[in-house]
């Protein structure tokens, strides 16, 4: 903004006369640039040159970044398979909720996925839930961080309602709705009849494992009540090792979210046929939520997300347009900046009844 450092010159009337003959007077305000509001200041103003350059600069910077992020996003290979409907036998689809609730029905289902492009290891396996409100006020608060961390805080379940204690009053570990509703679908991958290992180690944040979930806290009374929510936990493994739980407990901020299931530590070649055996246990049918299995590689900007790239390109384009527009406007009707004749009181009042 055309910064021009101009220290305001001291006015020559009065003040300088006073200060030229130093008189001992306690009444007299002490001179300092701050108290006299005369600190040197730079007063940038919006000149056409500056504004046009600024928009131009933004355009020049944004378009390459947009292209880069778009290409990064394009380089990510992603396989998305929605299986919530397909995995229910056709004759049972009338009442999906009954199917999923029943302990009799067979929940296993097999899906085959084809790899469109080369996928470089590691390939991340996500499950995606739609219309699932992990951010619901009632849900998001229903946990006890202290209990998860410290063995001694086992009874610290006051915030976990309505899933804090069993019916006989002994505390549930881990308590709360979030843990209770743990996602429990499982996936088994095989490539050309050969099992493909899914690495489920280190899918949770290291900081969570080290500092948020206790090494000496073991599941207790979990899913023992009348109503079974989601997955169960092995009571012999400490919480800090229950990585699925830790991932699940990192609540999502949006109703559509993906959570890491595991990593496939092998490259996938184009046209590979992947077979997935899904244990379809989790109930999203009662609220019409979708379940998707996602395999994705990653890039410097993360997973497949065209938004940033497109937004950058759009804004870059708009800025370019604005810069050109302002330049043309400036050439067509140049304005003499700061012409006092524009001042309303210098105009003839009657001739131009405009507003200021």
């Amino acid at each position, binding site marked *: 903004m055309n910064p021009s450092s101009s220290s305001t010159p001291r*006015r020559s009337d009065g003040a300088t006369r006073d200060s030229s003959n130093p008189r001992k007077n306690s009444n007299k305000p002490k001179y300092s640039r701050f108290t006299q509001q005369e600190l040197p200041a730079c007063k940038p103003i919006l000149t056409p040159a500056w504004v046009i350059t600024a928009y131009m600069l933004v355009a020049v910077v944004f378009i390459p970044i947009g292209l880069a992020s778009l290409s990064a996003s394009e380089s990510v290979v992603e396989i998305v398979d929605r299986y919530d409907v397909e995995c229910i036998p056709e004759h049972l689809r009338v009442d999906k909720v009954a199917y999923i609730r029943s302990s009799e029905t067979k929940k296993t289902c097999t899906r085959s996925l084809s790899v469109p492009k080369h996928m470089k290891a590691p390939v991340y396996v996500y499950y995606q839930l739609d219309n699932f409100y992990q951010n619901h006020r009632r849900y998001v608060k229903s946990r006890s961080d202290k209990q998860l961390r410290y063995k001694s805080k086992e009874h610290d379940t006051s915030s976990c309602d309505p899933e804090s204690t069993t019916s006989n009053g002994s505390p549930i570990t881990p308590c709360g709705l979030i843990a209770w509703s743990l996602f429990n679908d499982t996936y088994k991958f095989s490539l050309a009849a050969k099992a493909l290992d899914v690495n489920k180690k280190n899918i949770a944040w290291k900081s969570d494992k080290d500092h948020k979930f206790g090494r000496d806290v073991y599941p207790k009374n979990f899913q023992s009540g009348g109503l079974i*929510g989601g997955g169960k936990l092995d009571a012999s493994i400490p919480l800090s090792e229950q990585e699925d739980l830790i991932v699940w407990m990192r609540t999502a901020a949006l109703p559509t979210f993906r959570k890491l299931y595991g990593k496939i530590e092998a490259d996938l070649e184009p046209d590979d046929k992947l077979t997935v055996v899904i244990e379809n246990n989790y109930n999203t049918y009662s609220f019409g939520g979708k379940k998707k299995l996602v395999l994705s590689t990653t890039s410097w900007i993360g997973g497949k997300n065209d*938004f940033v790239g497109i937004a950058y390109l759009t804004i870059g384009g708009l800025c370019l347009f604005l810069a050109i527009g302002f330049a043309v406007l400036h050439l067509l009707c140049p304005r003499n900046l700061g012409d006092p004749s524009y001042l309303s009181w210098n105009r003839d009042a009657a001739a131009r009844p405009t507003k200021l």
Partner: protein
Amino acid sequence: MKRIVYINDESCQDLYCDNRVSNRKYTLLNFLPKNLWEQFRRFMNQYFLLIACLQLWSLITPVNPASTWGPLIIIFAVSATKEAWDDYNRYLSDKQANEKEVWVVKNGVRKHIQAQDICVGNVVWLRENDEVPCDLVLIGTSEPQGTCYVETAALDGETDLKTRVIPPTCVGLDSEQLHRIKGVIECPNPDKDIRRFVANMRLFPPFIDNDICPLTINNTLLQSCYLRNTEWACGVAVYTGNETKLGMSRGIPEPKLTAMDAMIDKLTGAIFLFQIVVVVVLGFAGNVWKDTEARKQWYVKYPEEGPWYELLVIPLRFELLCSIMIPISIKVSLDLMKSLYAKFIDWDEDMFDAETKTPAHAANTAISEDLGQVEYILTDKTGTLTENRMIFKRCCINGIFFGNESGDALEDVELLNAVANNIPHVIRFLTVMTLCNTVIPIKSKSGAISYKAQSQDEDALVKAAAQLHMVLIGKNGNIIVEVFAEINFNGSILQYEVLDILEFTSDRKRMSMVVKDCQTGKIFLLSKGADEAIFPCSNSGQQIRTFMDAVEQYAQLGLRTLCLGWRELKEDEYIEWSHMFKEASSTLVDREWRLAEVCQRLEHDLEILGVTAIEDRLQDGVPETIEILRKAGINFWMLTGDKQSTAIQIALLCNFISSEPKGQLLFINGKTEDEVARSLERVLLTMRITTSEPKELAFVVDGWALEIILKQYKEAFTELAILSRTAICCRVTPSQKAQLVELLKSCDYRTLAIGDGGNDVRMIQQADIGVGISGREGLQAARAADYSIGKFRFLKRLILVHGRYSYNRTAFLSQYSFYKSLLICFIQIIFSFLSGISGTSLFNSVSLMAYNVFYTSIPVLTVVLDKDLSERTVMQHPQILIYCQAGRLLNPSTFAGWFGRSVYHAIVVFLITIHAYADEKSEMEELSMVALSGCIWLQAFVVTLEMNSFTILQILAIWGNFVAFYVINFIVSSIPSAGMYTIMFRLCTQPSYWITMVLIVALGMGPVLALRYFRYTYRPSAINILQQAERSRGPIYSLGMLESQLKSVEKDVASLSINQPKSRSSVYEPLLSDSPTATRRSIGPSAFDFFQSMPSRISSSYMRNCKDN
């Protein structure tokens, strides 16, 4: 009710409070409850307390209650600390006063005790230069005549010495007797009137007689005065502690509310309503969603049957979520800013008056913004526009004019010759000048004589006479009984015995003295007074034509005139009159009226000796100041007690009105109601017709007509007040001044009253802003005022620089505070649509609290250094003040702009965040931190864009705050137990985080900048134009060539002084025939802002609408 005080009686001292002075508002015990009570009287605080209490209910609170309690407690602590500090300082000064040692008689022995132990009835002894510790009735002094001198500056601000006398019954008591004196004083209950004390005293035997002796204010020594020029004095304590006259008059003035505060309150109210609407709508939607959708979401586990208050839970959650819409920090920020504005005024070197060594002072720290919105200035004349330093300039003795050529009679050779030649008329004239006054000459040790005078005019006369070799060298003797005045004339000492003083009152408008020439034994009556008071008393045989001409001529030059007269009294006439006079002066009923009547009997058949003309010079820079402020669109009214012709002359001299043909004076006068009504009607008619003319109309009204108008024709006068930019009201009383202020205020105008004397106090207190000039008439006005300045010319700086900057800064700060609160609130609201309308907070408690209290409050506080235009530019283009006056920077439409911006920014931040952080990245803590960072980034750019000038402090605050945000979050992110442990570190290592931030800023600021640039360049406001002009070619001097302006005014004055008597007789109406275009000037320095000349002046409400555009 009466108070009975027994002198020196130890037994009944407990009836009244002791002399402990306490100005404290609080004690240690009641501080907390009382202070909290005071604070909770504000609506905003009640609101925040309610919110904070609601947050304690964990079922509905979206965030930790600490996020509201923290700031609330900080805010309360800050206010309470400030109060406590003030109170502690008051306590210290009280303590100092209370523990001062004084001499008091106890059981007949003089003892040293602390001032706080004085009881009513004690006899207190004072020495020279002692401060009077409580209100005393004087009973003895070191002077044989029973007088003493006191300086009352601390009480009423008057710097001259006042004489106090002991009551007659106490005359002649020696100090031994005074130790044992017994008696009773009957006095009224404590009040705050420092000019009245109606009491009487009776001494018990063996002291003389037990006659009742009346006491007046002249027999008292009031608390906080100083004893001067008197070795000792003693008095009986009658009022002590907080019941003294000073203590009673101490009061907490009504807090004034600025127009801006009112507007901010209004906007707060609007936001509050908006919030209620949002809460109701979202609460309803939330309940619907809960009953339809949430029941299906099994993992939420809603119970089938909720408690009875279930329906309320979601709305209350939203209420808490939206409570941040009203920024908790705004009050504190504003208070902080306002006290800085006041400090800037105190510190301003350019408003330091080197002559009297007084800096400007803002006694009221809360109303600086109003200075920028002043529409009417009501000014006193004497001492405000003029210096109130009287200088004897001309005189007319026996028909001969002196000083007309040179302009200074003291240098007029003819007068000097006349004095040297002992021309009898001249000598008599000088004798009256020297003697007929109440001036007290004080001889210093070196022999030089200085004069203490209550009236500046008398001082001027005595000094002038001294220069003409007639020096008043001493007055001694009891004021009551007899005075010997000595004058030194050309080396020979003349002695006069002052027999009686016929005091000056504002009704009589003259004073007289009866003196006896000690050489010849002849008795003379010497009189001096206003022309209309003296001429009727003149000797019928004398030709007073020349004197009347002289008075007229002098008045037209703006000089103050006094007429002097004398008469020789016959011995028996005097003796006869003297009896009547003594009788009248000892009456208890209607004493003043009786005295006036008696005086009248003596004051007749005077021989007029001559006329003196005293100049009261205009203060430096008054015409320029008025010129500039009028250009700024401020209307001036002059309210003076002086006479019409003098007032008009001064008005012309200081650019107040223009002479013909540019300006026109319309007179409203008349003695009867009908005359006044007709006159008013005629003026109003002229005014209506000529409003579209660029002619400066002013009306002149005198006190008498005003009295009638304010009683009977208030509506017509109100219309006139709206139409007229200028008015001169002469011969008005203090209460009329206050009434006029009230009238303008009732028309919804912002008024500023400026004055210097005690007669302006009421007007100053009444006005929206009172400005006092710490002048020669004392500090009374300055004490009552919100601002005190040393000279009138500082007013332009006070208004145009301080007032304007304050307004601009507050306008920005307040709207910005709402903007940032709304921004975060809207993000929460949008988020609630993605969280099942359940009232989840996207942001954690720490972030929310820190956002309001630190991240967004601190950088914007540096707006206190922001200057949109340099001081010099503002002074050159005072018209720019219209932006503040009309409130164009803070009104519902500008506020709507900020509101819209906050909605837009909230959408930008939220949409970009959820799209960039979708799918696998949509972790709650991360997403909320991304959104918060987005807000912080935007804040920094918004503040940068909205500020006009950047000093190092601003740059540090804005970007330092930005860095501080990251530092604070890094620190919080490294605490393992914190919810956002490691979050900030994770984000900062992701390229997509930085890309998202840049995207938010670009999309958020791009359109704002484009719009701003477009407006700035193609639809610039006057401020923008001047900013550009400032940059492109430095200061511009296109307007106001002040010097040439001044010269032309001087010429106008000269021409008008001849024409004036003619134009006074009737209303001059040639304008009616002029074609409207003939006199219109296209561009000119004194062409007002067209707003002022628009017909819309008729209706103030319409006017306001225009201003709001």
